[in-house]
């Protein structure tokens, strides 16, 4: 019985540790970072500051990835320790699934599109 009580107590303690990390400075830092990371891509597209569209596209996608990481850390409080690491495991699994599904769909459908093209349009193919 004493073992049981101890185990429950230990879990309690851990549970509290899992999500009590929100601080004012953490939220403000996350907010300022995400405002900057949102404003720059909008400005890049609206002003056309970069010479080519391809470079602009790559840069704003990079900004999106960084901003998603910022939100994960400062707003969703993701870390490797919460829930004994299981939430990180679920996240990694989901990212793997998303990457496979997204890249697979885009790749396959792009090739399908290309191969279904009529012959006279083939010259314009990438």
């Amino acid at each position, binding site marked *: 019985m004493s073992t049981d009580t101890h185990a429950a107590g230990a879990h309690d303690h851990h549970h509290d540790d899992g999500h009590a990390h929100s601080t*004012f400075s953490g939220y403000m830092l996350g907010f300022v970072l995400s405002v900057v990371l949102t404003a720059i891509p909008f400005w890049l597209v*609206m002003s056309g500051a970069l010479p080519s569209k391809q470079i602009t596209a790559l840069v704003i996608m990079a900004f999106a990835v960084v901003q998603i990481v910022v939100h994960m850390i400062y707003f969703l409080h993701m870390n490797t320790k919460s829930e004994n690491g299981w939430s990180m495991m679920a996240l990694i699994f989901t990212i793997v699934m998303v990457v496979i599904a997204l890249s697979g769909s885009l790749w396959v459908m792009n090739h399908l599109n290309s191969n279904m093209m009529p012959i006279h349009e083939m010259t314009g193919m990438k």
Partner: protein
Amino acid sequence: MTVAVNPAQTGEPVFYLADEHPHPEGYSTSLGFWIYLMSDCLIFAMLFAAFGVLGANYAAGPAPKDLFDLDLVAVNTSMLLLSSITYGFAMLTMQQNKIAQTQMWLLITGLFGAAFIGIELTEFAHMIHEGATPQRSAFLSAFFTLVGTHGLHVSCGLIWLVTLMVQVWRFGLIEANRRRLMCLSMFWHFLDVVWIGVFTFVYLLGVLR
């Protein structure tokens, strides 16, 4: 998962898994809710994939350049971003047991969320008025499905927010309400993460194309 040893210590230890100890109520809620969010993430990934495949099929209809007003999207994005930080403030005041301030921040969050939905519906109404309906082209079908699903999530979040405000008003910041507010916090911030994908891949890259 604690391995308990026979307390008699007779030299022949008996091992068994003692994972039947009682858990406090809501012990696994946050992990369970996180797993729900991850499955929701897969839904959005599929809608993004559909948009990625069909996003350039205009069927001689309007293209993103003709439809999207980036100024409006920027305002909309700032609404969602501001609602994220005000929800953060609600969580901070909740930790300090300040009920009135928590309710105030929740209300402000709700107003920003409602502004977001209002602007989005105005945009949709404007597009449909111009003939850019979901039936017009594969691009518009994928657009309305993806952005509409996100908007539906935010609307559900708003209903949830109002429900929790009533709960906090009636029962105070009890343990159950704190847990619910934490789940909504994850949901709300998650929707903001999805919106980063939407404004980058749908609006910005769309206008760029």
